[in-house]
């Protein structure tokens, strides 16, 4: 990581500069060990294509998504307004997020509270870079012929109709792409959304991520591409639960992009 420069907005501002884009890391991306790797990979991509970016660092706080979806609108709006204040101090215009929940909340729910930014998810950024020819699939690990399936995060797909961007990022891999029987708008939730991540599931016959695992097994994919840190956790637990750690890998679209480009 030493070669990747990661500056905070505060550091940028102190140097009298404004970055092109603010990278909103999110709580999972900041604290969850597995998601931290994705965070670093997103930085590598930004760095590789030469986009000037910065993070908020210790000034970032939870967007309020889990609070809002659990019904705590007070806490959500407190978080939102404090975050908006910080973002506005730095004159933020464009934000890329590493998490569909942050993406959805800042893009859709912050404007009503005075926070207006152009918000994109990291898979959309990757797609744009591919479209512009700034990002290719060369120089690194080959995915040729490997069977990859993609799991749609609810807050990216159904929530915001982003279905193509992550697929586009995988299409350039020359891999064997397969869809699960439940995909796109019909995709099955990983079980983490709506604050479920932070509580025990209600009683039922099985956990949702195990149900999803069955779709994955049926697809016979050896790599499951994810685009959300929560999906990542749930899918990995599913893989563990089915004792398939040797056969099936769960990788974020950003990680795959980093690997194929040898970053």
């Amino acid at each position, binding site marked *: *990581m030493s070669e990747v420069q*990661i500056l*905070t907005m505060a550091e940028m501002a102190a140097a009298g500069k404004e970055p092109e884009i603010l990278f909103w*890391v999110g*709580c999972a*991306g*900041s*604290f969850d060990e597995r998601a*931290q790797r994705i*965070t*670093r990979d997103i930085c590598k991509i930004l760095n590789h294509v030469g986009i000037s970016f910065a993070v908020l*660092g*210790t000034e970032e*706080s*939870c967007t*309020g998504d*889990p*609070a809002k*979806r*659990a*019904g*705590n*609108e*007070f*806490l959500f*709006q*407190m*978080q939102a*307004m*404090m975050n908006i204040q910080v973002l506005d101090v730095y004159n933020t215009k464009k934000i890329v997020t590493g998490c569909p929940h942050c993406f*959805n909340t800042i893009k*859709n*729910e912050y404007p009503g*509270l005075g926070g207006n930014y152009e918000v994109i998810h990291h898979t959309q950024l990757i797609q744009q870079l591919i479209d512009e020819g700034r990002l290719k699939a060369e120089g690194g690990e080959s995915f040729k012929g490997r069977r990859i399936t993609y799991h749609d995060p*609810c*807050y990216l797909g*159904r*929530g*915001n*109709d982003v279905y193509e961007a992550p697929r586009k990022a995988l299409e350039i891999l020359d891999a064997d792409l397969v869809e699960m029987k439940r995909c796109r*708008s*019909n995709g*099955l*939730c990983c079980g983490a*959304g*709506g*604050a479920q991540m*932070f*509580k*025990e*599931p*209600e*009683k*039922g*016959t*099985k*956990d*949702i991520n*195990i*149900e999803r695992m069955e779709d994955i097994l049926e697809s016979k994919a050896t790599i499951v591409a994810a685009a959300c840190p929560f999906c990542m956790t749930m899918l990995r637990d599913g893989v563990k639960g089915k004792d398939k750690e040797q056969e099936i890998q769960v990788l974020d679209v950003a990680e795959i992009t980093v690997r194929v480009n040898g970053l």
Partner: protein
Amino acid sequence: MIGQIIFIIILAAAIWLFSKNVGKIRRNILLGRDTDRSDNPGERWKTMALVALGQSKMVKRPFAAVMHLFIYVGFVIINIEVLEILVDGVFGSHRVFSHPLGGLYGLLIGGFEILAVLVLVACVTFLIRRNIGKLKRFSGVEMTAWPKSDANYILIIEILLMTAFLTMNAADHKLQLLNFGHYIKAGNFPVSDLLGPLLPDRASALEMIERGCWWFHIIGILAFLNYLPYSKHFHILLAFPNVYYSNLNPKGKFTNMASVTNEVKAMLDPSFVPEPAEVSRFGAKDVTDLTWKNLMEAYTCTECGRCTSVCPANQTGKLLSPRKIMMDTRDRITEIGKGIDQNGKDFKDDKTLLDNYITREELWACTTCNACVDACPVNINPLEIITEMRRYVVMEESQAPASLNNMFGNVENNGAPWKYSAADRLNWKEES
């Protein structure tokens, strides 16, 4: 003459009763809170044309889509014929459109007959599918006796109506061939012609059959019309306004509660003076805390179960069923409506949607994935009701599950749902 008078009395009574019941549903819907859905009329008309008129969300299940299309198109087009029956009934005429329409009339009748057969096929298929084919979508805790028989009644009534229509035409056609009375030669009867051999040859008997079926058909239709307000079949009317008033925002966007915004602004900035707003409850405990749109959706629900069949919570055996959320909401607002009818405007009882109808276990099982919202063929949003009720439980009662309270505490104190220090937020930069 006597026939005409009886007909007009029946017609007037049917229309009066129907408007009265529709009026009640309208009143019940308006017991909901206000919400503004008047923006963007262009987009709204377009959505209505696509989703309600064009049935665009039905195609996900092609078999059901085709069968439903038969019934839908049949219903819409056969109404031209119903119009003729109404005119004939009021003025004592017979096939009044046959003269002015000439050749076109024959084509129309031919078309109606074919549609009638398609409707019959679809209804019989649906009956078999519901009662013999063990489709999971049609069972479930909320599909108790009434919703099950409601669906069957609708199908049986439609079968009877179509059979009466074809028998009436068959008898009519035979009478035409006999040059009997006022039964003038009118058009093609491609399907009912085939039924001819099953009917007697005597003109008087044929006339009795024709008249009998005519009255049965039209009284049946008027009775059916008055059955609608009590049935899920009411969707044939409400689907259109309901889709028109759809949520046009991205599905992931939840409403920001304005009342909360005021309080939060005042907390963050003591100099902020909020506009005086009416103090209402945070979230929904009962149906009257929901918006009129939520209530309109409850009356629009067709109980098709597409929402429930894609719900991840439901599929993994949890108690939650988005269809039940909609049916409970409708049952509860209907109950309040009845109370108002009997006891006046200020009627109150000691029941609420929360707990008496929908349990907390159901509410907490939802992952807010929007699968139900996406699946609904008439753009109903069960998730909004779930969220509103969670808001009540959390903000008014402080009764969130303990683990969620922990999460709230962490967000409030550490700025993250986990118990990590905000100072460690950039630690990811160093590791690996």
